[in-house]
């Protein structure tokens, strides 16, 4: 076929990124439509303050969704992120309020405690589901209960408070109106994008999501890659805990209930396939924005709580239907 010669003459750049952008254009368009709609129909939507608010509000979901993207790409799912976040926050809250530390040490201790807790929970999820080849849905459902119970046990169901002032500052710091915590999330997105697209590790994660057996027969240790994906997801849950603490200045053992569904929704609205192997973390970014903009805009527009919930459902469905037509159109 003549197409072959065509590709031979093309420059040797990776066309991967171009395709990624196109793949996400559909959901990007849905996002644009939402933004346009709210800009026209509400007064305050496009004000700097409100944009700051939106960025702050999507941060936690975005951080969780980045890790979730790794797990979903290998064909898994992690229902425990909300609970693990709470558990990590409680452990870190206990650490940060330990007597006898200066603020800097206390903060460092908290960050270490939160990430280690997250990493440990994620690793357990990964090891169990990979070693026995068990459905991660049910393993992480177990972890959802374990981590929540542990968070409540450790904190005795009490909200932990009075963190060092510097920690609060980090939570509310801005750079040109952009919350620092959002920049942290964005940084995670970029790192994840890089890892998924430009490293052997990322390539193999996609491969495992598509055809685990083929990757195994090509001599790769599928087990470790799976454990790694879940561990990354646990790690981002730990980071989310830190963001939560910095932003609200408390650690609540009942934080994060239902956050897993939001994170998964961001990933899937972003075009990543639940059966694994297809998708991108840039899509996840857009998916998180859709959810965040929707939540913000529907309040600004003054819809009642109940209507708001219904419309949220409708828009989520419409967004993926739109994406279907985009995919159909661009594949021609």
């Amino acid at each position, binding site marked *: 076929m003549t197409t072959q010669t065509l590709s031979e003459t093309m420059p040797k750049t990776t066309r991967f990124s171009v395709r990624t952008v196109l793949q996400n254009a559909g959901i990007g368009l849905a996002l644009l439509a939402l933004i346009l709609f709210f800009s026209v129909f*509400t*007064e*305050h939507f496009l*004000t700097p*303050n*409100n944009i700051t*608010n939106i960025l*702050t*509000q999507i941060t*936690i979901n975005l951080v969780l969704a980045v890790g979730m993207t790794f797990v979903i790409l290998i064909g898994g799912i992690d229902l425990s992120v909300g609970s693990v976040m709470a558990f990590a926050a409680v452990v870190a809250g206990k650490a940060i309020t330990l007597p006898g530390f200066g603020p800097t040490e206390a903060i460092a201790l908290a960050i270490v405690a939160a990430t280690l807790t997250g990493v440990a929970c994620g690793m357990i999820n990964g090891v169990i589901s990979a070693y026995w080849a068990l459905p991660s849905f049910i393993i992480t459902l177990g972890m959802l209960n374990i981590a*929540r119970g542990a968070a*409540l046990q450790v904190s*005795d*169901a*009490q*909200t932990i*408070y*009075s963190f060092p002032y510097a920690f*609060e500052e980090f939570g*509310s710091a801005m750079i040109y109106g952009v919350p620092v915590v959002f920049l942290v999330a964005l940084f995670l997105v970029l790192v994840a994008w890089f890892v998924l697209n430009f490293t052997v590790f990322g390539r193999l994660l996609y491969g495992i999501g598509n055809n685990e057996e083929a990757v195994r027969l090509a001599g790769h240790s599928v087990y470790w890659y799976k454990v790694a994906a879940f561990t990354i997801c646990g790690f981002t849950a730990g980071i989310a805990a830190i963001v*939560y603490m910095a*932003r*609200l*200045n*408390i650690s*609540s*053992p*009942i*934080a*994060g*209930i239902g956050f897993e569904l939001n994170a998964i929704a961001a990933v899937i609205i972003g075009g990543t396939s639940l059966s694994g192997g297809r998708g991108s973390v840039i899509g996840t970014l857009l998916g998180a924005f859709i959810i965040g903009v929707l*939540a*913000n805009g529907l*309040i*600004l527009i*003054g819809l009642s*709580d*109940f209507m708001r919930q219904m419309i949220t459902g409708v828009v989520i469905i419409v967004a993926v239907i739109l994406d279907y037509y985009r995919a159909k159109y661009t594949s021609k």
Partner: protein
Amino acid sequence: DDKPVVGLIMKSLANEFFQNMMAGAQAHEEKRGDYKLLAVGMQNETDFESQINAVENFITQGVDAIVVAPADSRAMVRPLKKAMEAGIVVVNFDVALDTEAKKQQNVELAFVGPDNRGGAKLAGDALGKKLGAGGKVVIIEGNPGADNANERRLGFEDSVAEFELDLLDSRTAHWETEEANSVFSNMLTAHPDIQGVMAANDSMAIGVVKALESAGRDDIVVVGFDNIPAVGPMISDGRMLATVDQFGTDMAANSIDLALEVVKGGPQLEGWVKTPIELVTAN
């Protein structure tokens, strides 16, 4: 060992209000030493079924008294009736069973507890006094459909009416700090002229206070409900105007005392045994 057995049914123990209440009950059990306490909570605030299951389990175990904080004032009437028919002493505390529902089921049951609506009105009144007529306020509600959320919203609305406040918006944040933070930030964008906020519990009030800090607004007055330890500093440094203490720690213990009284052959309780509520402010 023939000590009377008391079954305590609470709402979600993940909620620190009930957790503290339970700790109070356990301390009380140890102190009195003349009864055995079996306590259960729910998985979450809306898990009515597990309370009904708990009642059924207690009937099975043949406890002497059931002391219950109903998650739904209507759903619990029938199972509690069953317990009473099984000869178990039942005491209803924290949230009153629905009067209509009781009447329909032919149940006579006293209520031991605070006046949620009255308590919310205390907080609302504090805000009203501070702002004066025409003050622009919003309400952050609890879980829609939950009785105490309803009561507290009604109490706030009573204050709004009495002080002729201007209620700009009223939304749920499902009792949750993070959601209150987001929801209130967005309400503040929509209504930059807000002057006062009534949060139906302190967890949500904390979220509101943080949102105000991020927005750099120190001109907005916040009241909450529950008096959890975390809001103590906020009240003393003026970030919050007031909260309401309903002395949850003692509530269950007091109700148990009343139940044991009846078990020992004392008279049936009647009407509303009101427990104290108190407005907590900086001074």
